[in-house]
């Protein structure tokens, strides 16, 4: 039987040339990320408490001022816009507490906290690990009997998974407080009305935000560690790794936010 030879058209060749490299690069990146996650989970129990605590301070405690400020003003502007918009439609600023509470706990609290932490902590992780990579400090860890993932990635992973949900909870609280100040002193909403609306929020709304924040934390730490560990090319490489860690984390947070919200709502959480 004659062998049938596939005919390769010029279009196919151009398409392969255009997509082949990026697709191979993407597959390689996905594979490396899966290996990094698997190894991080494997070493999870061997984490040193001291290192984890240090990272919680660096990531969580030191991020508190910026996340607090962000959520305070977000709560305030949310109350202001809601109040004025509803006053135009209904002649009075109604449902300010409900809108501020729901928006903050379900969306703005987790997303804004994660975006701010991605900028601050993600950049710091990628830059630190990237510098260690290009100055051969990661190789030095291997030669000193230390697995770099166990020593560097695991404490950051645990710290991020603890810090970001806690920061999100605090952001929710501060944002609601900011909304209260504007609602009461600027819009003239009675305090009891605002607080009653906030009290209507159930545990499901809170859990909706906290579950999402845990996924966002995992994205930030995994992408930043991956970019740091795979950094090449001196100072320029460290800069590129840092930028791409932040950009990829932020985009993934926003994209994943939609899908996580859809899944959680379909399960009746939030």
């Amino acid at each position, binding site marked *: 039987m004659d062998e049938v030879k596939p005919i390769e058209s010029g279009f196919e060749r151009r398409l392969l040339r255009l997509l082949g490299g990026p697709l191979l690069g993407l597959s390689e990146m996905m594979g490396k990320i899966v290996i990094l996650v698997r190894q991080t989970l494997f070493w999870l129990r061997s984490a040193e408490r001291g290192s984890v605590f240090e990272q919680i301070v660096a990531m969580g405690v030191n991020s508190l001022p910026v996340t607090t400020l962000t959520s305070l003003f977000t709560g305030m502007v949310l109350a202001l816009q809601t109040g004025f918009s509803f006053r135009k439609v209904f002649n009075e600023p109604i449902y300010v507490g409900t809108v501020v509470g729901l928006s903050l706990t379900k969306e703005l609290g987790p997303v804004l906290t994660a975006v701010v932490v991605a900028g601050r902590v993600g950049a710091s992780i990628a830059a630190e690990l990237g510098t*260690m990579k290009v100055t*051969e*400090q990661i190789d*030095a860890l291997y030669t000193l*009997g230390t*697995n770099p993932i166990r020593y560097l990635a695991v404490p950051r992973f645990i710290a991020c998974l603890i810090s970001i949900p806690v920061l999100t909870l605090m952001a929710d609280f501060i944002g609601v407080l900011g909304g209260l100040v504007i609602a009461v002193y600027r819009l003239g909403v009675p305090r009891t009305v605002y607080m009653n609306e906030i009290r209507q929020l159930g545990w499901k709304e809170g859990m909706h935000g906290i579950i999402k924040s845990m996924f966002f934390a995992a994205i930030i730490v995994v992408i930043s560690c991956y970019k740091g560990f795979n950094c090449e090319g001196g100072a320029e490489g460290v800069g590129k790794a840092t930028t791409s860690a932040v950009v990829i984390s932020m985009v993934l947070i926003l994209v994943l936010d939609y899908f996580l919200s859809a899944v959680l709502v379909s399960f009746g959480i939030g």
Partner: protein
Amino acid sequence: MIRMVDVYKSFGTHHVLRGCSLDVQDGETLTIIGGSGTGKSVTLKIMIGLLKPDRGQVFIDDKEISAMREDELAEVQKKFAYVFQMGALFDSLTVGENVAFGLRQLHKYDESKTKEVVSKTLSLVGLNGIEALKPSELSGGMRKRVAIARAVAMSPKYLFYDEPTTGLDPIMSDVINDLIVQLHEKLGTTGVAITHDMKSAYKISTRIAMLYDGRIVQVDTPDNIKNSQDPLVKQFITGSSQGPIQMKVKAY
């Protein structure tokens, strides 16, 4: 004993090693010489399992390491210590913590024993009382000596030096050479060094191996290398631009 058998390694389309074979005998100091970018550091990193060869085998004390699992390799790596070209000291730790790092992670010594070993090792490299300094406060020569101290503190069977004198002034280079010779005599470790500094190679080596085009072209004693009739070796050790080795200068 370390044995590399017919090792190949490429990075993308760049073929670095093309059938490299080399034996390192116990107790000797073998220096690999060769031009920049010929794959000396890659050879060293393959020997200790930091890089995997594409083809070929690497034996450490008769155990083949290129196909080992990570935990098995970690056991074999306990026999090694590596002095990196730029030191690779951990910036966030002090000198004392850098030297103690391997002792704490690998040997699990208690604090008093660790401090004792750190102080002893630092005095061995002529740097007493600098435990509290940060690596950024040290000169190039001091960083190199701290890196050697960190490696020696591990009491390794095999000690690897990646360009031990690069970036140092001639006197400091000679100090480092003397230190390597002294450590070899005192501790009896097997050494593997890579360099293109011939003065250093002649001083520290029991044997010298020349790497060119991904293969070892000659392995011999320093005296025989000095008198080698191989045109590649001859050109390299005399540092002549005329000969079979043609350095490629990139045109921009």
